[in-house]
C-alpha cells in the first residue's frame, strides 16, 4: 500500500488494523489447515486439487469395491474347488468299485450287490456335493433362483442351463474385478458332471444297475468305466479351470488393493496438509503477527501532546 503524503492518526489506525486483520487471517487459514489436517477444506482452496481429490475418492471407492467383488468371487470359487476336491476321491473310489465288479472271478451276485450299495452311497454323496451352496445359492446351478442345482431325487439338472462352448450372456455368475473386467466365478453342473442324460449321476445309476445285473455284465461295466474316466477328466478339467480363475481373481484383488493404496497416497498428497511446512508457516505468521502487534502498540502511542507542557 502506498503511503500518502499527509498522514493522520486515523490513517495509521486504519492501516494498523488492516495489517493486523490480514496477519490474523493468514494465521487462521494455516491454523484451519493444521487442525483439519487438510490443505483443501473447500473447493475454492484449490479448484483443480478439489477435482483430483473427488476423482481419487470415487476411484478409491471403486477399487475397494472391486477388491470386495473379487473376495466374494474367491468365496464362490473356493467353495467350488473344495467341493470338487472332495468329489474326486469319491469318483475314483466308484471307479475302483466298478473295476472290482467287472473283474470276473470270485465275484458273486451278493458281493456285487454290496459294491452296488456303496456306489449308490457315493452317488448320493456326490449329488449332495453338487448341490453345495454358497451364501444360499447352489454353486453349480448358475444363475438359478432355486436352491438346488440337481434334483435330489432324480438327479436331473434343475439349475440355469449354460450354452456351450460360449455361455450366453446373463447365464453365468460373474464378478466385476476391474474397470470392464468380469471374471466368471461359477461352474455349471453340466460342465463338471457331464451333459444332462449322460452325466455322472446317470453313469453311477447305470453302474448300480449293471452291478446288480445277474448274471454279471462285464462288457457293460467296462463301458461304464470309460464313462467314469471321462467324468473324472471332466471334473479334473473343471478343477484346473477353477484354479486358474481363482488365481486371476486373487491377482485382481491384489491389484485392486495395491491401486487403492496408491490412490490413497495420491489423495493424501493432494488433500492433506504438509504438517512440517504448515507448522513452519504458522510459526512465521505468528512472529509476523506479534511484530505487527508490537509496532502498532508503539506507533499509536506517541503524540505531540506527550511533549507539550
Amino acid at each position, binding site marked *: 500500500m502506498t503511503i500518502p503524503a499527509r498522514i493522520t*492518526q486515523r490513517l495509521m489506525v*486504519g492501516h494498523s488494523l488492516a495489517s493486523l486483520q490480514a496477519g490474523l487471517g493468514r494465521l487462521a487459514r494455516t491454523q484451519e489447515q493444521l487442525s483439519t489436517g487438510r490443505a483443501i477444506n473447500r473447493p475454492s482452496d484449490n*479448484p483443480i486439487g478439489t477435482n483430483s481429490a473427488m476423482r481419487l475418492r*470415487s476411484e478409491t471407492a471403486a477399487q475397494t469395491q472391486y477388491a470386495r467383488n473379487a473376495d466374494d468371487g474367491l468365496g464362490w470359487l473356493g467353495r467350488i474347488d473344495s467341493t470338487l476336491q472332495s468329489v474326486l476321491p469319491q469318483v475314483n473310489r466308484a471307479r475302483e468299485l466298478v473295476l472290482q465288479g467287472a473283474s470276473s472271478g470270485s465275484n458273486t451276485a451278493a458281493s456285487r450287490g454290496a459294491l452296488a450299495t456303496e456306489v449308490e452311497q457315493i452317488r448320493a454323496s456326490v449329488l449332495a456335493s453338487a448341490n453345495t451352496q454358497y451364501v444360499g445359492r447352489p454353486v453349480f446351478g448358475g444363475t438359478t433362483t432355486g436352491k438346488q442345482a440337481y434334483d435330489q431325487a432324480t438327479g436331473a439338472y434343475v439349475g440355469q442351463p449354460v450354452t456351450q462352448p460360449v455361455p450366453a450372456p446373463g447365464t453365468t*455368475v*460373474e464378478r466385476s474385478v476391474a474397470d470392464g473386467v468380469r471374471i466368471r466365478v461359477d461352474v455349471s453342473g453340466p460342465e463338471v458332471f457331464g451333459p444332462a442324460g449322460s452325466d455322472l449321476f446317470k453313469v453311477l445309476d447305470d453302474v448300480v444297475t449293471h452291478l446288480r445285473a445277474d448274471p454279471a455284465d462285464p462288457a457293460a461295466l467296462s463301458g461304464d468305466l470309460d464313462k467314469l474316466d471321462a467324468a473324472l477328466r471332466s471334473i479334473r478339467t473343471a478343477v484346473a479351470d477353477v484354479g486358474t480363475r481363482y488365481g486371476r481373481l486373487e491377482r485382481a484383488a491384489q491389484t485392486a488393493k495395491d491401486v487403492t493404496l496408491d490412490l490413497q497416497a495420491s489423495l493424501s498428497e493432494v488433500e492433506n496438509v504438509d504438517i512440517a511446512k504448515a507448522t513452519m508457516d504458522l510459526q512465521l505468521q505468528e512472529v509476523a503477527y506479534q511484530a505487527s502487534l508490537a509496532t502498532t502498540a508503539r506507533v499509536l502511542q506517541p503524540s505531540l*501532546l506527550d511533549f507539550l507542557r
Partner: protein
Amino acid sequence: VTGTFSSLSTALSALQYNRLAMDVHSGNVANVGTDGYVRRRALGETVGAPSVPAIWSRYDGAGDGVRVSSIERMTDPLVDARVRTEHGEQFLLDGRAEALSRLESGLGEPGDNGVAGALTAYWSAWHDVANNPGDSAARSQLLARADALTGALAGQARVVGTEWSDQRTKLDAAATEVNTIAGDLARLNETIRTATKTGSDTNTLADRRDQMTLRLAELVGATATTTTDGMVEVKLGSAVLVSGTTPSTAAPFTVTGGSSLGDRLTLTIGATDVTDTVVAGTVGGVKSLIQQDGTLHTSAKELDAFAASLADAVNTQHRAGWDLTGPPAAAGGDFFTSSSGGPVTAANISLAVTDPNRVAASSVPGTLDNSNADALAALSTVDEGYRRLVTDLGAQVASSRRVAQNQQVLTDQVDASREALAGIDIDEEMVQMMAHQRAYEAAARVLTTLDSVLDTLINRTGLVR
C-alpha cells in the same frame, strides 16, 4: 489620514480571527473520530484597501487587520467521486464473494458427506446387489442409499434456493434503503440551499450529504454531481434518482419480477428501466447473482442437468433389466422419477422403485443374473458431471474472492487519499492551535502597547515632570 483608534480595531480583528481559528481547530480535534467528518480550516484574509479604487476619495490606511474569509472544508470532489466509484465496485464484489462462499460451504465438498460421498455409496450399493442379486438386504441397502443420494441432491438444490431467497430479500431491503436515503437527500438539498442563501455554515450539512451519496454509491453504484447552491444530483446512468429538492418518491427505485429462481428481474426508477445500468454496489452484486442466467440460476441449472443426466442414464439401463418378482419376472421400470411430475431436477428427484424386489439386477428374466446391476454400477462415470460442477463453483468462488481482495487494495488506496486530505492529524491541529494562541497573545500585546501609547497621549501630554 487614518483614525487614532484604527490600530485598536486591527488588534481586535486579530483577536477575533485567532479565536475563531482556535475554535475551528478545537472542533477538528473534537471530531477526530467522527465518521464522515471532513477537516476544516479557517481561511484568513487581509482587510486592506478597497479592491476598486475610487476617484474622489483615496485609501491611505496601512492595513486594517484580518478577517475570516471562509471556513474551508478540506475535500476534493474528484477524490470523493473516485471513492464512490471504488466503494460501489467493492460492495458488488464483496457481496458476490460472500454469497458464493456460503453456497460453497453448503456443498460440503470435498468430503465424505456431500453428494459425491452419496454417489460413491450409491454406486457401491449396485456392486453389492451384483454380488448378491438374490439378497433382499443388498437390495434394500441400494434403495436406502439411492434415497440418501436424492436427499443429498435435494439438499444442494435447497442450499441454492435458500441463498437465492436470502439475496432476494436483501434486494428488497436495499431498494427500501435507496428510496429512504434519496428522500432524505432531497430534503437535505433543500436545507443546504436555504442555509447557503442565508449565509449559514453548511459544512456539517455537506458532511452528511457526502455520507448519503457515498451510501447510495455503495447500494446501487449511483453517481453524484454537485449543482447550484451546494445541492447534489444523484443519477443511475441517465436515470435521475435525486435532483435538487425533488424527492425520489416521485420516481422511486423499484424492483419487480424475480419471483422465483430463474425469473427475470427488472429494476426501474419511475418508468425508466435501469436493470442493465446497475453494475455496481450491493444491488449490482445481488443482481448478478439472482438475475435470470445469473450465477445462482446457472448453478441451479447445472445441478438440475446433473440430476437429470443421472436419472436418465440409470433409468435407461434399469429398464433393460428384469426384476425379482414373479414368476414371471417383470421388466425393470424407471429407477428415478420426479416427485412433482415434469422433468427430473435436483429438487424433485426421487425413487420410482420402493419394493426391493423391483430392482432390475438381472438381464435374463427369472434368474439371479447380475449383469444389469453390474452395468448400472458401471454408470458411475456420470459423476464427472458433478465433479465439473463443484470445480467450476470452486474456481468461481476463488476468483470472486481474489477480485474482491484486489479491489480492496484499490479501495483502501482511494480511502487513504481521501483521508490524507480530509483526515485530522492531532499533531498538526495542536501546532496550529499553538500558532493561533501565540498570534492571539501577540494581538493582546499590541493592544497593551496601543493602550500605553494612548495613555501617553491622553494622560501625559503637556505634563512636565
